[in-house]
Every structure is written in structure tokens, then in C-alpha cells.
């Protein structure tokens, strides 16, 4: 029985979904706090989605606006798709956090502020002329002002830790208070603490005490006389875990390695927000996964190409600027018709841009951003959990079709999390490869051996009789030898395009969610999925004729996409860029579309989509 259930006098109220944002200084441990709340809620059985947000890659001065780090979670007893529109609760560990995040808090929302940090220096750093907790500046909100620091010091006084160390548990106090408010069990956090600080029992003790102190503070003070209950969400049966996009993507790759029975190599060069994929895979050495931290992105992609040439499932991952560097080499992979998966976890551009913020502005680059006619398959993941499926499918297409495949994710997906129904390992599709086992007579390395897939064979070094030479110069369509022949070149250009086109035969047809025709179709791709789906649901709930199509396959598009689109009077494309998908849709289908661009480093929220729909169609 979990600890919380013991508390007797609590007054509770049922709600179906709640959004909390933890915010504090970079040193305040907000990411950890948020993660704990998420894990607990996930295990508890809520649906949820999260959005971590940290300022820049180096630590900004303590207490400054630039140094604020935050973590938002929406948890619900109903199906949700995003970390929430506006927080219901803002935990502000210091004045800067309050300053930065107050504008987002919903009207009448709750502020939980750690008064210990609202001293003169910090107020000044945050640009508050006076203490907002004191005047009536916040009168439209419910403010819970607590000197968390004092209460923690009090709670831990028996352990005998230095003041500095004790202070580090303040975030656990906040966590405990939120656990009480939302009726969550503390035990999974306790288990986490026990595991993490194995060698330092006094720290386990301190943190547990702090969590309990927060919890009991909730229980005993008048300030928070009510707690809310968010019951389990109904989800399809299965085993679930909470997972971040980058993690799911890494697991998808590992699974594809297994599913294809090939040696697996991941070559990367660290870059925010893609580095975690490298870190995670580097931990799986007992899966015989090779991770190679190359000297730069060019080395990463070319080493991956070398590995693919030698018969491995080769993957390289990066973010926008690194993707730009890889573009020459991608031409080689296209020309040599080698299987390769290239992951781009997009971030804010151009150039170094806003490395920790999210954006979808690398779509054009993925589609046609190379010299020459160099078409590539492009897939995009739509939710953190979907990163698993997308990675798996990318590997499958690469290997079965002998083509390089680009996977687009982004910072919002990579770092965000949601509950993931763990797939049955045996249910994953087997991946068939094109490896040649032995030399037949007159082996032709560049001949298409499977017209349906437009795949050549994969004759790797080491097998007698298969020795042959290929390269980036134009090749004869059968022998792979250098060819300067005019007609052969024309043929090969067409063949490379056809290799992409046939992929359309294997991917699912597009199907509108909602109705098959109507006043408006919202067409999206990638990480806007959650906001669009929620926004559309809300509009539909109001009776508006709006549907949703979400593209995972950007190149090629689903065969029937044009037919689906023309069934709607209008098409709205929300994108975190200046209309990149819109350009491709317009060019392909000669259909007018409404662009809804958002490019401020933050993901869409459902209400924005809902409002935009209303703006276009009026409220039904």
C-alpha cells in the first residue's frame, strides 16, 4: 500500500486533466522534479505528455532570466496529445521563473512560489520592481507562497548535513507538495532516490524527508485545503512505460538491428538535441552495438556509409547544422544505392540559431537540399513514442529498398515524453535484406534484383567472386562501372527517382481523421501531431466540420494524398517553419493551402489550433 493512501482528512475533487509547470533556476533541479512527477503519474496510469525547456547550453548566472529552466507536464484521465495549453499550476522557485512563465499561466491558475528566493537581489535580477508576492499584482491567481527552504532545513535538521546540501532538497519539497495536491503516491520517487544515491544514504534520507515535508505541508496547511484526483486514463491494454522521443528512437534502432539480424553501427557527432541518441546507444554495448563518435558530422556520415558498404545497418544522427554538413555525402549514399538511416533531431535555426528550442525548418533541406537530382526517402515522427516506430520503419525501408532514408524528429519530440505501449518484440516485422550469399554466374552488382522494391543486391566485401568496384561517379546500370554514357545517365537519374516512388506502394494510404470530406482539413507532419489532434478534437466537439491528416511519409507522399485533400474546401497546414510542407503540397497537388506558421522556438498548443480553426470557419 502506498504511503499517500493513509492520509485521512483530505478533501478531494475530481478533474480530468491538469497541466503543471515546474520552473526555477538551472541549478534548482527542475528537470529532475518534472521527471519524477511524470514517472509517478505514468505509473499511476494517467495519460501524459511533457515538455522540458532549458535556456541555453551553458549555465546562465544564478537567478537571471536567462537561467530559468522549466518542465511542463499535462496528465489526464482522458486521452491527451500535448503537454497542455496553459499551465494550471506554476511552481516558481525564484522570481526569474515567475517573471518568465507568468504570462503563460491560465487565468485563475495557481502559483506555488518558494518565498526563500524572493529576496532583493533575485527580484532585481529578474526585473521585478517590487515583490510580486506582496502587492496585489497577482490577485487574479491563487498564490501559495511557502518558504520551502526554511521548511526543508527544519525537516532535515536531524540528519546533520551542511546547509548547502540541505538546500539542494528544496525541489523535493515542491515535488512532495504537488504529490499531495494531486494525490500521487511517493513510492516510485523513493525507489528512484534509493537507486540514484545508493552510496550516500544520508542524501536518500534527506530527499525523502523533503518530499514528505512537502506532502505534509499540503496536508496540514489551510492554504491547500483541497487536493485533486486525476484518475487513470483508459488506454489500450498492454505494458506501458513513460518514454522520451530520443530514447524511443534509439530503441527503435536497436530493435531494427535485431529485426534485420545485421551488425549495427551508429556514427554521430555530439550536437544538441540529438546527442542523447548517441549516449543511449553507447550504453548498449552488450547488444553488440557499435557507437562511433566521429571527429565531425562528415566523418560520421561517411563512416556510416563505409559500414553500410561493408554490410552493417548503419545509422547517423545529428541536428540541422550537422545535417547541412552531411549533404554532400548523402549524395554518395544515393548514388551508391546503399542502405543508410540519417536522423535529424531539428532545432531552431538558421545557423547555430536557438539550439535548445524546437523548430521544423529542416524539411526542405531533407527533401531537396542536395546538389544534383538526389531524391531521398523522408519520414517524420509525430510523438515521442512514435519515434520508435518511425526509426524502425526507416531501417526497414533502407535495407529492403537499398536506399538512404532520412528521419526527422525535433527538440520537442526528442526531449518530450509520453506513455508508450511497449510493443511485442515478436510482433515486429522482420526486415529482409539484399545480401548476396555467393557469386552466381555473371554477377552484376548494380542490376535491380527486385523490381517491386527497385533494389539492387547488397554484395559486401568478403565473399569470393563478388569483388566489384562502385563509387560516386555515374555508374552503368548493371555493372556499376563508371559510365559517361548519356542515355545511361538519364536512365540512372530516373531510376533513383523511381526508387523513391515505389516506396509509396508499401506505405499506408492517407486517411482523414474525423470526416472524409468537409469544410477544413488540417494537414500536419511531425511533432505538431498532438496540438493538431487536440485542437481538431475540440473544434469537432463544438460541431465544426474539420478533419485531420498527419503525414509520417513526406517523400514519397501517400499515393492517395491528392484525392484525400481535394475532398475538403480548405486546407490548413500548421508548421513550425514558414510553410515548407505547404510549398511541397502546393507544388505537388496545385492546391491552395492556408499556412499557419509558428517559428518562435515553442511548439504549438491545442488552443492555437482550435482558435485558428475558429478563425477560419467561425465557431460552429
Amino acid at each position, binding site marked *: 500500500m502506498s504511503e499517500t493512501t493513509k492520509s485521512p482528512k483530505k478533501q478531494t475533487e475530481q478533474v480530468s486533466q491538469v497541466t503543471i509547470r515546474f520552473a526555477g533556476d538551472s541549478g534548482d533541479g527542475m528537470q529532475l522534479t518534472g521527471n519524477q512527477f511524470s514517472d509517478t503519474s505514468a505509473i499511476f496510469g494517467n495519460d501524459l505528455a511533457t515538455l522540458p525547456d532549458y535556456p541555453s547550453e551553458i549555465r546562465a548566472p544564478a537567478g537571471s532570466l536567462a537561467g530559468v529552466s522549466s518542465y511542463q507536464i499535462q496528465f489526464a484521465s482522458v486521452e491527451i496529445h500535448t503537454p497542455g495549453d496553459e499551465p494550471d499550476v506554476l511552481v516558481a522557485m525564484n522570481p526569474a521563473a515567475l517573471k518568465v512563465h507568468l504570462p503563460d499561466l491560465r487565468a485563475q491558475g495557481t502559483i506555488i512560489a518558494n518565498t526563500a528566493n524572493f529576496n532583493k537581489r533575485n527580484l532585481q535580477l529578474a526585473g521585478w520592481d517590487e515583490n510580486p508576492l506582496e502587492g496585489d499584482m497577482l490577485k487574479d491567481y491563487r498564490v501559495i507562497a511557502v518558504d520551502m527552504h526554511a521548511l526543508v532545513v527544519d525537516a532535515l535538521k536531524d540528519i546533520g548535513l551542511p546547509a548547502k546540501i540541505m538546500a539542494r532538497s528544496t525541489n523535493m519539497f515542491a515535488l512532495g507538495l504537488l504529490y499531495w495536491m494531486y494525490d500521487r503516491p511517493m513510492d516510485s520517487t523513493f525507489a528512484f532516490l534509493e537507486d540514484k544515491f545508493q552510496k550516500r544514504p544520508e542524501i536518500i534520507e534527506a530527499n525523502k524527508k523533503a518530499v514528505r515535508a512537502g506532502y505534509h505541508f499540503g496536508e496540514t496547511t489551510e492554504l491547500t485545503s483541497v487536493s485533486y484526483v486525476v484518475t487513470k486514463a483508459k488506454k489500450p491494454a498492454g505494458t506501458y512505460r513513460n518514454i522520451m522521443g530520443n530514447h524511443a528512437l534509439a530503441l527503435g534502432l536497436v530493435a531494427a538491428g535485431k529485426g534485420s539480424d545485421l551488425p549495427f553501427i551508429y*556514427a554521430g557527432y555530439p550536437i544538441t538535441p540529438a546527442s542523447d541518441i548517441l549516449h543511449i546507444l553507447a550504453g548498449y554495448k552488450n547488444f553488440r552495438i*557499435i557507437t562511433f563518435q566521429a571527429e565531425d558530422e562528415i566523418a560520421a556520415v561517411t563512416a556510416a556509409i563505409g559500414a553500410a558498404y561493408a554490410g552493417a545497418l548503419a545509422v547517423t544522427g545529428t541536428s540541422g547544422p550537422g545535417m547541412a554538413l552531411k549533404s554532400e555525402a548523402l549524395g554518395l549514399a544515393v548514388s551508391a544505392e546503399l542502405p543508410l538511416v540519417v536522423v535529424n533531431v531539428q532545432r531552431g535555426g538558421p545557423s547555430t540559431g536557438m539550439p535548445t528550442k524546437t523548430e521544423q525548418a529542416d524539411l526542405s533541406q531533407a527533401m531537396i537540399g542536395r546538389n544534383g537530382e538526389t531524391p531521398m526517402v523522408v519520414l517524420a515522427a509525430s510523438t515521442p513514442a512514435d519515434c520508435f516506430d518511425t526509426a524502425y520503419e526507416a531501417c526497414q525501408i533502407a535495407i529492403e529498398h537499398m536506399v538512404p532514408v532520412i528521419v526527422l524528429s525535433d527538440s520537442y519530440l526528442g526531449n518530450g515524453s509520453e506513455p508508450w505501449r511497449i510493443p511485442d518484440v515478436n510482433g515486429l516485422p522482420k526486415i529482409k535484406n539484399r545480401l548476396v550469399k555467393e557469386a552466381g554466374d555473371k554477377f552484376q552488382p548494380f542490376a535491380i534484383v527486385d523490381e517491386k522494391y527497385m533494389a539492387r543486391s547488397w554484395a559486401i566485401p*568478403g565473399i569470393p567472386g563478388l569483388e566489384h568496384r562502385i563509387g560516386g561517379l555515374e555508374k552503368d546500370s548493371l555493372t556499376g562501372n563508371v559510365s559517361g554514357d548519356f542515355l545511361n545517365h538519364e536512365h540512372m537519374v530516373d531510376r533513383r527517382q523511381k526508387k523513391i516512388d515505389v516506396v509509396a506502394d508499401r506505405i499506408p494510404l492517407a486517411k482523414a481523421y474525423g470526416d472524409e470530406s468537409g469544410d477544413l482539413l488540417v494537414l500536419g507532419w511531425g511533432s505538431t501531431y498532438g496540438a493538431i489532434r487536440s485542437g481538431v478534437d475540440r473544434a469537432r466537439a463544438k460541431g465544426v466540420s474539420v478533419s485531420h491528416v498527419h503525414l509520417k511519409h513526406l517523400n514519397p507522399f501517400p499515393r492517395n494524398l491528392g484525392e484525400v485533400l481535394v475532398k475538403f474546401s480548405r486546407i490548413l497546414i500548421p508548421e513550425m517553419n514558414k510553410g515548407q510542407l505547404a510549398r511541397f503540397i502546393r507544388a505537388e497537388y496545385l492546391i491552395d493551402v492556408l499556412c499557419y506558421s509558428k517559428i518562435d522556438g515553442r511548439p504549438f498548443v491545442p488552443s492555437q489550433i482550435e482558435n485558428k480553426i475558429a478563425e477560419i470557419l467561425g465557431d460552429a
Partner: protein
Amino acid sequence: MTTNVAVSHKQSRKDYVSDQVVRWCPGCGDYSILSQVQKAFPEFGRPKEEFVFVSGIGCSSRFPYYMNTNGFHTIHGRATAVATGVKLANPDLSVWVATGDGDSLSIGGNHLIHLLRRNLDINILLFNNRIYGLTKGQYSPTSEMGKFTKSTPFGTLERPFNPAAFALGAASTFIARSLDMEGKHLQEMITASYRHRGTSFLEIYQNCRIFNDNAFIDLLEKPQKFENQLILEHYRPMLFGANKSKGIRMDGHRPQVVDLDGGRYSVNDLVIHDKHDKMLANVLCELTYMPDFPTPLGIIYEDNQDTYEDQVHKQMDQAVAQLGEGDLEQLLHDGHTWEVQ
């Protein structure tokens, strides 16, 4: 990891000749290098399907097409990185890089130094003709200062790299030098490169007949070649000259050319070459570009260190030994999970 499976039939040079017409200019030194490689390989007693030639772009980088082994003609400057991927994916292959001075030292400089540092068992043949051949005669990072080329009609202003010193600075474990037209010596060096476990860096002075003819004539034509070639032999004194009448002596940490006929110095005063001596290797690298010194040819330095790929695979084996063979099912269920009915 090297599988020295005996080859069923005795190989000959012919086995390594591909069906492609060789397209270098008549008189190009590349022909001779090709021929020595084709002569050396049959002696290794290794099935030919295990050889892979990776190259970048340049005249020299066409090399793989003419070898009847596996070949990958990649993109400019990236051969060493591609080769790294090949070797990591399959350490059982014998991986060779054919590259030019532009391909490896200009655009490809970074991948080269990192390959040397990582020390994968890859053999680099650097065709140093001190010019860009394929793009028709611009200077390269090894072109001599002041050289008139297509891109420097008033003479270059860049100090050239000393490739051996460069490699040593990048922690190379095998550095050797030979000449396109010294067939026997070249073949020996190719074999030594093959035998070295770890990255071998073999600089081959190569004549570009069209854009930099006779660049190495002083090292090739008799009689002056004897004055200019310092043939290094392990544990042998550093002798040179037509009658082996000259030698290299160390004056403290500084090298000196001495005349053995003068009566003052005998062969016993000369420095004994030790290819494992890194300090000496430094001296030999410097000496190459010092006026009045002969050019060292042969193995300048060799050091046996673990190869990167061996360690990579060892680390995986150890992880498996410690943690058990990775179980996907378990991995997916790692951490907190919960059931929904």
C-alpha cells in the same frame, strides 16, 4: 581478427588486375604503384575477396577500379573516414586507402589525422605528386614554396606540409616512405604496411608526368640518387652515398651528415636506425626537409599499439560477459512500466 586462411590456389599478379582500362596519362607514376601492389598482394596468402580499396577523388583515387578486389571510390577527402566505417563493421577485411596529397592532406586532413590517432588497422597509400593532378595542376599542401601552378601564376606562398612529421604529430603508429619507380623497395614497403597492425601511413613519391614532371628526379636518377636516398634499415647504421661513404651521426640531439672517407668518423659513429624510437623518428622526419640531408626512405617509425577496432570489439565482448547478451524484450521493458488491462 585477421583471418589468414590459406588461399586455395597460388595467386599471381593477374588475379589482382581488374577488367577496367587503366586511364592514367602515359608515363604517370601511378602505373608503377599499381603494378607493385598487384605484385605484393599475391604474396600475402589471403583470399582476394577480403581486400577492400577505398579512395577519395583524384587521379590516384581511381586506383580501386584497377584492382580486382572490392573497391569504393568515394568522395573527395573522405576515404579515410569511409574506410574507418568499413573496418569497424567488418574487422576481418584488409582495408586499404588510396589517396592523393590533395585528397588526404588538403580537404581530407581532418579524417586522416583522426584515423592515425585512432589506429585502426588500415593501410594508407598516399600518392604524393605535390600537385592536384585530376583538376589539372593546382598546387597542393605538399607543393614547394614559390611553385608556379594554375592557381598560383605568380608562385605559391604556402609552406608545404612535411607529411611524415604531420603523421607523427598525429600519433601515427607506422610511417614509411618510398618512391613510385623504386619497384622493389616500394613492394617491400607495401608488404610492411600490410604486416603492421594499426594504421600504416606510406608516403609514396609519385611522378605526375603532366603537371609536375620530374619532381623527384634527384631521388631517382643515377648517380645523384645515391647521394639523396637514405635507405633506412632497422638496427642498421644510417649509411648512404654511392659507395656508402656517408652517414648520419647524432651530435647530441641534432643530426649531422658525416663523410666516412675523411678519416674522422667511422661507421661506428653513425646512428643506428631503430624504427621503434620515436625521438629518432622525429629527427628523421625533420631531416627530410633539411637542406644538405638525404631523404629517408623505408620505415621511419613503427609502434605496436592496440587497434581501435580490436578494442571496440573487446569492449562489446566484455559488456556481454558482464551484462549478458542484450535482450531486446528486457531492454524495452527497462525502468518503470505499468500494465493496462
